[in-house]
């Protein structure tokens, strides 16, 4: 389970600070070494707001390549509302890279 980061069920403004710190710690530990991609799982995400989405989006503006695993319905729905479906599609496919949308 260490190989992927599980986003919390409540991915919102209330958990944002904690989630960011946890993510940064996890990245520092697992980093890109030995892994082609950082794998971020959104399967547990049941509640999400703009702040939560922004947190995940900020990953895209980092050096490390990452990809999104198993986005939950709530996560997908939020992305659809903000027109970010293409973006998560780009993250979840095999060819996903970091970089601009």
């Amino acid at each position, binding site marked *: 389970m260490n190989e992927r980061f599980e986003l919390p069920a409540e991915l919102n*403004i209330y958990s*944002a*600070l904690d*989630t*960011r710190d946890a*993510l*940064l710690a996890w*990245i520092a530990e697992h980093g890109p070494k030995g892994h082609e991609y950082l794998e971020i799982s959104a399967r547990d995400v049941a509640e*999400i*707001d*703009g*702040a939560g*989405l*922004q*947190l995940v*989006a*900020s*990953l*895209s*503006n*980092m*050096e490390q390549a990452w990809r999104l695993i198993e986005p939950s319905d709530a996560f997908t729905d*939020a992305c659809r*509302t*903000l*027109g*970010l479906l293409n*973006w998560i599609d780009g993250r979840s496919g095999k060819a996903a*890279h970091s*970089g*601009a*949308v």
Partner: protein
Amino acid sequence: MSNDADLDFIAQAMPAFISEAAEQIEAIETLLLELEEQPDNRELLDSLFRCAHTVKGSAGIFGLNRVVEFTHHVETLLDKMRDGDIALTPDISTLLLQCNDQIKFLVDTAADESADTAEQKDLRADLVVRLRALTDGNAQPVQAAPAAVKQAAGGADAGPQVWTISARFGPETFRNGMDPLSIARYLGSLGTVVRIKCGIDTVPPLVNLNPESCYLSFLMELETSSSREDIEGAFSFVMDDCELDVVAPETHGQKLVRAIEEMPETPRLGDMLVSVGAVSQDKLKEVLSTQQQTRGMPVVEKAKIGDLLETQAGVPPEAVAAALGKQQKLREGTPSEERYIRVQADRLDAVINLLGELVIAGAGATLLARESHQVALIEANLHMNSLIEEIRNGTLGLRMVPVGETFSRFRRVVRDTASSLGKEVNFEIVGGDAELDKSMVEKIADPLMHLVRNSLDHGLEPPQERINAGKPAAGKLVLSARHETGAILIRIEDDGRGINRERVLQRAWNRGLVEQGVVPPDDDINMLIFEPGFSTAEQVTNLSGRGVGMDVVRRNIEALRGTIRLNSNPGKGLQVDIRLPLTLAIIDGFLVGVGKSKFVLPLESVVEVIESGGDNVKVDSHGRHCVELRGAVLPVVRLRTLYTVESSLPDRVSIVVVSSLRGKFGIEVEVLLGQNQTVIKPLGRLFRTLRGISGSSILGSGEVALILDVTSLADLATGALHGFSAAQTPVTAAVSTALSS
């Protein structure tokens, strides 16, 4: 020193400025009149504004402060109209026309301060007061208000419309308990989200991210019947901390697109968008720095500036597309607009004169080459001649201008004349793009003006009289132009009362133009209005104030080798047809010989050539006779007899069948010499009275050929000129019958 140089430059460039400004002023007038008819035409309004702006701008360069000051007020009003604050009413239109007159006056008298009399100053001050009353009275303290009002008015019955909503949320948004996601959801519930793009490129990398600050922005296209207030309501709690731009359906993007199209050539995408106001300089910098971050990545991954501008700066995609398109055009080096060079008319005339000489010299060379019987030389000459012909056509083409420019000047005249006469008229211009030699266009303007005024004054009835006659209250006046076998036909058509033949005849009898009691054919009665001495003094002052009578109109048109014909339908209207040759300088001719004399016929009038039995045919003293052509009687005029050319008549002669306004007729000649380019030279004063000849030409051999005027020759052939009282010979009687059948 440099100051002197500046002054020199200004003095030199001044005439060009004045002529350009005159064109702009003319354009303003035309646009205003068009705008009266289609007040919602945005393009017209924009062009109008541009014209005024150009006049103001270039007047500024020349330090013509009076023009700049005055035009500025006009520009302000036009700007308000563009913003939709002020709608064009007939009053405003009249005011603007008057202002345009004033601008024209100021430009015309630019070099002469003394021309600006106290009277003109008062007039100008009055105009400024009226302009300001309009612009100040409508000034809106809140800029968004008029747009909202306009939208509400337009949106009420228009059903769902696509709004472009661009929102950039402030950093405090999340902390204030607000969420862009829920706002987007709420907006989605108002209608259908056509498109949404969320700007996440501005979100800092995770390491630098303050997760409680908001960095998001989105650009949404929402199709909804909701009002602007409803849409803005969704943002009511974030208003203080959010850059919101709700753009009325389409307009913003379209406006930007147009602005980009009209821009001078600025190569960089960002610069273009900044200068049309699609994005601020600061935002552009921001976006550019974001793009910088993606440097060094593979090309496919690199963020495109256009995309970034769309998502982050909320630039409408069509504006980006237009800017990209413009960039592409510039790269391809294709000029986006047609280019013009201003050339002095006399330089062009000099070239055309030389060309005439070249044509003659070329013909001489061809003749010599033929005589030498050297095939190579003949071929070289033929090639040269075909090139000369192309140059001839091309050069004459340079002088061609659309008659529409002259026509559109009449709009104002018609408008003003009709209103001063208390008449209503719908004025139409058809075929304004037909081209005519520039010098002809200038010379035809006055006669046309006279005829147009004549139609308004005498042709069209006052509204009440029209209604009584079962016609619509507003009269119709159509000015049209089209090409017709080497000539241009200009027609002035009205649906007025036509020519009252009885009154015309009565007046002609009274004035001794026609023998008392003699009743000529209808068409001839109509043409009497062009006879010298027919117009009364009262008419002259009424109509033109130039002292030009209808006889002068006809003389001017005939001086251009043109003809004028009337087609009157009493009670229904009058149609005046003016036919003019396309150019005055060179025509394609058909060379014929009679004895030792050479004559040229305009090639386009020649229909066919038949053989005839020479001296066996009896002719009258004017050389007229008839032949049978495929069962019809063809009147023929014998040049040898008409011009008493000394020659012995051969057994067989040729008859060139030509078509004229009066129908077909034949010209009997002895030798056919073929086609040639004919440079028209005017006839000397002595020969002006010669009937049937319109000019002369010098042939390659140095001989002089006379150019036959088909129309007046037709008159000679049919005997129509011999008037209404002269007894007609049996032959001419037969000819007349043949023609009228």
